[in-house]
């Protein structure tokens, strides 16, 4: 377990889960924007993999640039990416490891039979040998809060 943590606002977590359910049985992916370890907005991205979206996702360079630009527009920075594992545990695969970037938070949501289930966050070790599981904090529990939605929209 890494001592790194990331906080998902309630709306962000709901948005990630909803995206995973929407694309099931395919994988979804998107960027996470925020500041100081708190994700306040998501940027859903198209899954452009040619290897079959049931078990792979790929964010094109052009979409990556879009995500960085959106992060700037929202007054935050790019904190990482999320993706879903349809009918697979919310743990990073060897494939995730081979393609991971340092610093980024990788949020994985497991979608089992069309229902979003476990969600977890992972950070690449500096030597690239494995991921450390980070602490996923559920921020902004108040469903009536409008601040997060305002940033998210």
């Amino acid at each position, binding site marked *: 377990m890494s001592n790194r943590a990331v906080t998902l606002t309630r709306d962000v977590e709901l948005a990630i889960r909803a995206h995973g359910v929407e694309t099931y049985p395919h994988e979804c992916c998107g960027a996470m924007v925020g500041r100081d370890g708190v994700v306040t907005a998501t940027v859903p991205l198209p899954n452009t*993999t040619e290897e079959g979206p049931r078990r*792979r996702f790929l964010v094109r*360079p052009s979409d990556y640039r879009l995500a*960085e630009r959106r992060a700037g527009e929202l007054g935050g*920075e790019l904190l990482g990416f999320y993706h879903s594992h349809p009918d697979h545990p919310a743990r990073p695969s*060897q494939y995730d490891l081979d393609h991971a*970037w*340092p*610093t980024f938070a990788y949020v994985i949501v497991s979608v089992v039979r069309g229902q979003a289930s476990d969600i977890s966050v992972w950070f690449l070790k500096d030597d690239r040998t494995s991921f450390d599981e980070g602490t996923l904090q559920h921020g902004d529990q108040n469903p009536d809060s409008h601040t997060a939605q305002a940033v998210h929209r």
Partner: protein
Amino acid sequence: MATRILIPTPLRPYTDKKDAVDAEGRTVGELLADLTARHAGLKPHLYNEQGKLRSFVNVYVNDEDIRYLQKEQTPVADGDTISIIPSVAGGVEAAVDRELPALTNEEIKRYSRHLIMPEVGVDGQRKLKAAKVLCIGAGGLGSPVAMYLAAAGVGTLGIVDFDTVDFSNLQRQILHGTPDVGRSKLASAKDRLNAINPGVDIQTYETALSSQNALKLFEPYDVIVDGTDNFPTRYLVNDACVLLGKPNAYGSIFRFEGQASVFGAPNGPCYRCLYPEPPPPGLVPSCAEGGVLGVLPGVVGTIQAMEAIKLILGIGEPLIGRFLIFDALRMKFRELRLRKDPDCPVCGTHPTVRHLIDYEQFCGIRPAAPEPATVNSATDITAVELKQRLDRGDKLKLVDVREPNEYQICRIPGTVLIPLGDVPKRIGELDPNDEIVVHCKMGGRSAKAADFLRAQGYKKVLNLKGGILDWIDKVDPSQPKY
């Protein structure tokens, strides 16, 4: 001349949090070398262990991807802006893509040595239970593969074979025992595997793998294990795996040498990237012709089983893009780097093979012609005819063209031993006026010797049809067959 390089968010911790830094160089390659010299922490994230740019690192000169320019040799001019842009990719493991079953208490006990390792654990064991592996062949390689995979708890194990167990199999094919001789290999394998682990679903396919049935047979399986002993089937398995996107845990054996790799994985090379064309027929001898040390398939088959399990679990470094060569006599493993060939006819960027072809023809092997009912009396002689003529007292020169170690096992009385390779230099021992009968084990090598002698002007050369094996069957059953 310094050039600006834009650094993406995840790499900024390695550039003192700067989003752009300067580096010097005339080409992209030189610039990146200078960049990683100045900021050493960047290097492992940009380059792989072989010093190549990682596939998910994109470098742009202004707005052009260098892949479409001159790659790392792309020249950099004054005022250009270089951007490093990540492709972000991920996903679940390639091998098993279905819901994972729970483990029973009995299974937890059986697999406890797996479960206590974090790399396997309960989730890994459930992946094994969900996994389906197809073994091509229940012979030398297929035996250890199937036995270890069954023991490890792979849920469904398919086996394709159409042979029966022969005494000559028992020296290495440990799926089968002495009482199984004469039984179908699949029936024998099923009994053995059920005894090892009754929880495994054994699916047997008593058929010769062909271009007509391969895709349908492979479809339900996650990993294919190639334990075949001939080139047409090897190319067939390779192409079918590539077309279906299934990994192929490959192994092959000959005498004291083994090979192993994983072909057909996404982004990995295939057998045709290594060998685009098969060798000419007859150049590479089979185990039946050249022999094989019985333990060798045990080593190579367990490597294949290990790779299949790693693919299922998604752990470690699979033998993708690596070709392992094992030399049993020197007890050495060597490893060759394999690259995916962009021009590969099956897995390249513009494949020309999009469906399964006729692999016998591809490998230059004519389909087996039906055995001619009559023997050509000008060139061939049967074992029975030879016996009759010898009993009559006909003067025949008998030449055995096998190897000395084969001659030690069994022989026809009165023969002279001249191994096929020695025939040209020992031709002086044969009189062109004699009537000569050549033989080998089954008739193949002696046919070549007969052709050679006739070309040298020997008028009366007869080839013993079916070789010494037929002689033993029809004339002299007291001798051992091999």
